[in-house]
């Protein structure tokens, strides 16, 4: 057996937007095991639910993450609405769906850019982020915020998008489609991308399932599981097929996210065509009692918001299980057996969001 050494990776590393630490156990240049640890940005946001009344806690839930902010807020609202048995107006459900898909578009474009950067493909990084700006502009124009939208509330949404404006937004997405196709074609077909990603960080279908992975990370190993199929918000009225790639390597996980850009455009188009007129919210009164688990498909995968009420305006418990937290064991599996030089690309291939994971 070769001599083993431990190389610390992170918490600060050029490829990591946020801090996570890995102890990489190496034999020569090969990783034989990886031990993760987190906690550098733990804010204890869940605990704040005991100090804030449940309607205003939406603002805190939204700040769990700067990328999936809208989906955190809407899933928290979904949990409270489930606990209180609130019937949310149809139009509000469609609007939540539209903003959720815009969030997915901007998150995937951000990640594709960061991933290109991790491979040293600077022009591809800049092109992905250039396209992302158009998505952020739409989010800002329709909600008032690029990062924190603040448009979800318990019982519905705070803002409307006029139908004429929705048509314009769909028109602009259609116009972007060929640019997104050009971008995806580079990821799909460029020889340097393929050389860098194919066969790297391979996790088989069975191993991915056995590691409890979720989202594009799981779908990149060939399992087409997508929480949008449960039909929350307005997804039960929209048609879509979960995207899956069988290869199980970094290339497969990249392809899933690139292909999901087009799924999101299709879903926004359908939602804009079907959205009914009507109220945006119902009045919510009273103090919740009981419990509820709500889940949604974030850009990184399944998120769960659990709420437990005790008959007061302050909830007893709010717990969030984020997709990155669920994908940490998958990362450990993907790193075993890889070369040290491939570690940054493999770590980034799960699209880690540590702010989310630690709350």
């Amino acid at each position, binding site marked *: 057996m070769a001599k083993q050494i431990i190389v610390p990776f992170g918490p600060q590393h050029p490829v990591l937007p946020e801090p996570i630490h890995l102890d990489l156990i190496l034999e020569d240049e090969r990783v034989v095991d990886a031990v993760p640890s987190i906690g550098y940005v*733990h804010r204890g946001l869940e605990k704040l639910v005991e100090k*804030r009344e449940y309607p205003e806690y939406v603002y805190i839930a939204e700040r769990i993450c700067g990328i999936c902010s809208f989906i955190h807020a809407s899933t928290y609202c979904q949990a409270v609405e489930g606990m209180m048995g609130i019937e949310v107006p149809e139009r509000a459900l469609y609007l939540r769906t539209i903003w959720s898909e815009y969030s997915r578009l901007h998150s995937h474009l951000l990640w594709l850019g960061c991933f290109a950067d991790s491979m040293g493909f600077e022009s591809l990084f800049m092109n992905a982020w250039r396209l992302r700006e158009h998505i952020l502009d739409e989010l800002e124009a329709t909600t008032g915020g690029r990062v924190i939208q603040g448009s979800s509330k318990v019982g519905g949404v705070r803002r409307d998008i006029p139908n004429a404006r929705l048509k314009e937004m769909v028109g602009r997405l259609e116009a972007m489609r060929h640019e997104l196709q050009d971008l995806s074609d580079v990821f799909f077909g460029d020889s340097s991308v393929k050389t860098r990603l194919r066969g790297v960080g391979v996790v088989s279908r069975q191993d991915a399932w*056995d590691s409890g992975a979720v989202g594009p990370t799981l779908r990149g190993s060939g399992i087409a599981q997508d*929480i949008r199929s449960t039909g929350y918000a307005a997804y039960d009225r929209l048609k879509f097929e979960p995207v899956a790639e069988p290869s199980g390597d970094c290339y497969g996980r990249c392809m899933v996210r690139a292909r999901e850009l087009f799924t999101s455009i299709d879903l926004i188009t359908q939602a804009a065509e079907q959205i009914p007129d009507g109220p945006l919210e119902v009045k919510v009164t009273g103090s919740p009692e009981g419990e509820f688990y709500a889940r949604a498909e974030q850009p990184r995968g399944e998120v769960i918001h659990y709420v437990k009420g005790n008959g007061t305006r302050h909830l007893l418990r709010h717990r969030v*299980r984020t997709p990155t*937290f669920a994908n940490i064991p998958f990362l450990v599996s993907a790193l075993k057996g890889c070369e040290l030089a491939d570690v940054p690309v493999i770590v980034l291939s799960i699209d880690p969001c540590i702010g989310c994971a*630690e709350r």
Partner: protein
Amino acid sequence: MKYEEQPVTIALTGELLAKAGEMKSSGHRLVQVGVAAVDDIYEITYTFDRDLAMNHIRVILPKGTSLPSITGVYWYAFTYENEIHDLYGIEVTGINVDFKGTFYRTKVRYPFEAQVKPKEGA
């Protein structure tokens, strides 16, 4: 909008491993392990999923007692079990990867252990 059915089965601490084994052998995925502190007990809820339908198994744990690890059944439960130890101070016995309190490097030890009293008007 229709809400999912959310059955919660209460299990004794001693039954946990057998219940987790049943879930594993019937093809369920472990979705999460969560804790809620209610007065003098902890509600430890194990959420499983098969074909996008959730099932919850709940263990009622008196404060100051320990919980057996299910990492022998679901190896990836180590993240959840280290989390509940580091945030609540719950002792979990037999974890396959035991960080011994260093998974979350928090300034305050067991930050979720105490219940917070809301301020008037907050």
